[in-house]
């Protein structure tokens, strides 16, 4: 922030703190209503962050952001919450779900649809537009929005609904989530393809996020314990990888004021740490060892194999390849194509506090590979015991 001489620090940091506390509220909510309230607080508190720059473009982006997130949550999610309460009389998160026995037939799928589309923060297509629209935000916000807080709040809610409201077994028995699985698969591939066509680095990362979020939705929709576990783990793995990418993108912007990938030839030579961190983050997103992302992908593929969904395995594989194409090409250009004429080839990294965070999170993805077992034990209770 300060590296770019931006203004309104107080408003910025106040909203930032509020957003973080809203995320905590979501994380610790014990029933769907509390979660819903904090979900809305998060939407509202991040709005000033998106509109931070105050330019017409930023205002327009922020309006899309607010419109989609509020519209879906009030139009669908609230309806779903009320419906759930009216048929079950409770909104408490319960192992194995609360809906079984209260609802049957196609209504299950409809209710799931209300939830799935109502949770706009999970950026399931076609309600994904807010994410690229929010690209106008400053980079730390993008990191927060796209990598950690907002989108993770979305997919976290998605998992909560899948596991504690519906219950995985109930979903599996009724087959209500099968359409969601296909939609998530479509989201994964379509968003990756769009990401390939984006030259703006942050836009590319935003579409990559849309694609990766659908991994988590897919994990839930597979309705197996392995899938749900993989989805849960992917929240952590993707967060660590994607925040690295966004912070590296921010570091590139701070040091060179470049936003487009086609202008980034040779920058790896003058910013080796930033690009190194980006490389590691990208490998984790792709799901390559020895980085954290490989484990969540492994679990998701196991989950898909459990349900006999060959196509889903194929989707995960193709998605990896698309990730390679749109992420590692940045590395190839950055390290191995010549710098434009006239740019001196001496190392000019961004300030310490800008390049250090991505370096740390990149190291984090490495640690997550070796300590994934701990994370798994941590997540195990959500899928076992019933």
């Amino acid at each position, binding site marked *: 922030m300060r590296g770019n001489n931006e203004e309104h620090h107080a408003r910025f940091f106040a909203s930032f703190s509020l957003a973080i506390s809203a995320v905590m509220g979501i994380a610790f909510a014990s029933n769907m209503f509390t979660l819903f309230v904090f979900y809305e607080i998060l939407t509202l508190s991040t709005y000033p962050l998106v509109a931070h720059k105050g330019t017409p473009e930023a205002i327009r982006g922020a309006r899309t952001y607010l419109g989609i997130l509020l519209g879906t949550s009030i139009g669908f999610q609230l309806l779903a919450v009320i419906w759930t309460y009216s048929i079950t009389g409770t909104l408490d998160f319960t192992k194995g779900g609360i809906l079984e026995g209260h609802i049957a037939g196609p209504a299950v799928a409809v209710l799931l649809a209300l939830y799935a589309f109502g949770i706009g923060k999970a950026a399931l297509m076609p309600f994904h537009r807010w994410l690229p629209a929010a690209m106008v935000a400053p980079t730390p916000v993008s990191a927060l929005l796209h990598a950690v807080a907002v989108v993770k709040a979305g997919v976290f809610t998605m998992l909560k609904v899948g596991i504690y409201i519906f219950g995985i077994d109930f979903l599996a028995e009724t087959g209500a989530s099968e359409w969601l699985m296909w939609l998530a698969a479509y989201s994964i591939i379509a968003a990756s393809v769009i990401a390939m066509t984006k030259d703006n680095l942050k836009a590319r990362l935003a579409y990559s996020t849309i694609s990766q979020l659908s991994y988590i939705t897919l994990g839930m929709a597979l309705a197996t314990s392995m899938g749900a576990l993989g989805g849960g783990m992917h929240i952590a793995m993707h967060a660590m990888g994607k925040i690295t990418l966004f912070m590296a993108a921010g570091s590139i912007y701070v040091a060179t004021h470049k936003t487009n990938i086609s202008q980034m030839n040779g920058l790896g030579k003058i910013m080796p740490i930033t690009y190194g961190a980006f490389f590691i983050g990208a490998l984790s997103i792709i799901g390559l060892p020895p980085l954290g992302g490989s484990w969540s992908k492994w679990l998701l*593929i196991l989950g898909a*194999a459990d349900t006999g969904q060959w196509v889903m395995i194929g989707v995960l594989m193709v998605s990896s390849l698309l990730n390679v194409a749109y992420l*590692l090409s940045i590395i190839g250009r950055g390290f191995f*194509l010549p710098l434009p004429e006239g740019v001196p080839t001496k190392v000019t990294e961004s300030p310490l506090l800008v390049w250090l965070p991505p370096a740390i999170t990149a190291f984090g993805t490495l640690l997550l590979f070796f300590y994934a077992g701990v994370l798994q034990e941590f997540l195990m209770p959500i899928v076992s015991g019933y």
Partner: protein
Amino acid sequence: MAIESLPTAVLFFAGAALLIMLPQGRLRAALLLAVPVLAAWQVWTLPFGDHVQVNFFGLDLELMRVDKLSRIFALIFSLAAFLGNLYAWHVRDTVQQVSALLYAGAAIGAVFAGDLITLFFYWEGTAIASVFLIWARRTEGAYHTGMRYLIVQISSGVILLAGAVLYYRETGSLAFEHMELGSPGTWLIFIAFGIKAAFPLLHNWLQDAYPAATVTGTVILSSFTTKLAIYSLARGFAGTEILIYIGAVMTLFPIFYAVIENDLRRVLAYSLNNQLGFMVVGIGIGTELALNGTAAHAVAHILYKSLLFMSVGAVLFRTGTAKGSELGGLYKTMPLTMIFCVVGAAAISAFPLFSGFVTKSLILSASAKEHYYIIWAILLFASAGVFHHSGIKIPYFAFFAHDSGKRPKEAPLHMLLAMGLTAFLSIFIGVYPEPLYALLPYEVSYDSYTATHVITQLQLLFFSALAFTVLMRTRIYPPELRSVNLDADWSYRRLLPNIIRAVANTVSKIWAANSAFWHRTISTVISRLYNSHGPEGRIAQVWPTGSMVLWIAILLGVTLIVNFLS
């Protein structure tokens, strides 16, 4: 720490980490030589057995399975890394140095992998580490080629992962042992191996990428990826009959391309493909003799193929080109390189007293003994063909043929040393194969030097040379031309992009027309509404009465319709 509990791959990774800390210069180059030596010593001293088990993420991983099959591959990989690094002594590019170590380490790690997950990890490791040897050329073409290479290699990895998952679900085991082809899981694993082994139609990454790498990068690339795939096939699919036919096709079609290819490094890539075919046939036959042949041939092949890539690389290093059409007459000033190239050519052509002779014959004999006569005839043809394009064409067009007028200096000393050492080993194996035979997976009771074998082989080679000479002197032999020859990669480099472009254009046109239509319609509706209902509109002029009348009229109309309908 006891050396047994340290996976060999870790030696390489630690070496790479240490390398970054050392200053650029001889110390680094020396470290690059020391690591493979240390690794080879470790592999040599390790007893057979499973040495490093880790429980990871609820999976039992086996990192160091040392047996006769994995040991011989690990040893030759270490040797190849040593020779490659010696050849690259002059390189002062950290990226290439680090990736050479990581790449070799990952390949050796994969060879020792006792389970499919560990194999997958190192499998992807070889893909990631090796692409830098291509990108390190630092040109736009190399960047694009590297991307293609990377995507193909990673797809092999993800297919392996998917196969491993399905195999795990089918059998409940992740151990990397012999598999029967049949279930979806085993087929996927088979295809994953097949991509890296450059099966026909899956092969083009090889001919595409290897000539695009740096001078030294190609030498290093040529040793590991494909031979790792050969090892994996030998481990997992020995005796799978379909491999015999795949291998036969593999030996056959690259030789046609090699004859008309101009870039000598691509000629070598085609002949590399052809040599892999021999090994794949050996695996498919799957008898002890055939598998011994495959392992032995892999060893000999790594050496002479490195040697050939080194000699052509030295020419490229001195002249800036490796194209047959631009070269010729270099023997005058690069005689030692020429001699080493001829040694490599003799070895790949399986001349008696050179390494190919004592290894390829194991596979040919196995095919004859198992009564695969057609296959045997194809392999024989491929042997003659390989002599034709690698044995004669490479040295002839680079060092003799018409004088190009180029008078480059002899290759630098370290390159000569690396080539000399490799040439020595190629001859040593040919003259005295017993030490190599002793390392093979099974007992060997085979003598290559029978009168029949020597005489028939010489007949085959001399008459092939005769054919070359006759065709050359009658000017039937196709001249070296600057050109590109279409291969299966055309499908994804030209056809597929064209299809995608056409589809994308159509879709976006329909999309644009569609949205333009809606945009127009909605604008019209809005502007009409605005005209009638807007602040300036007719209805607004008499706002309360006017609108009420309108609404009543509408209401009446609706009532009327409902009335009629009911």
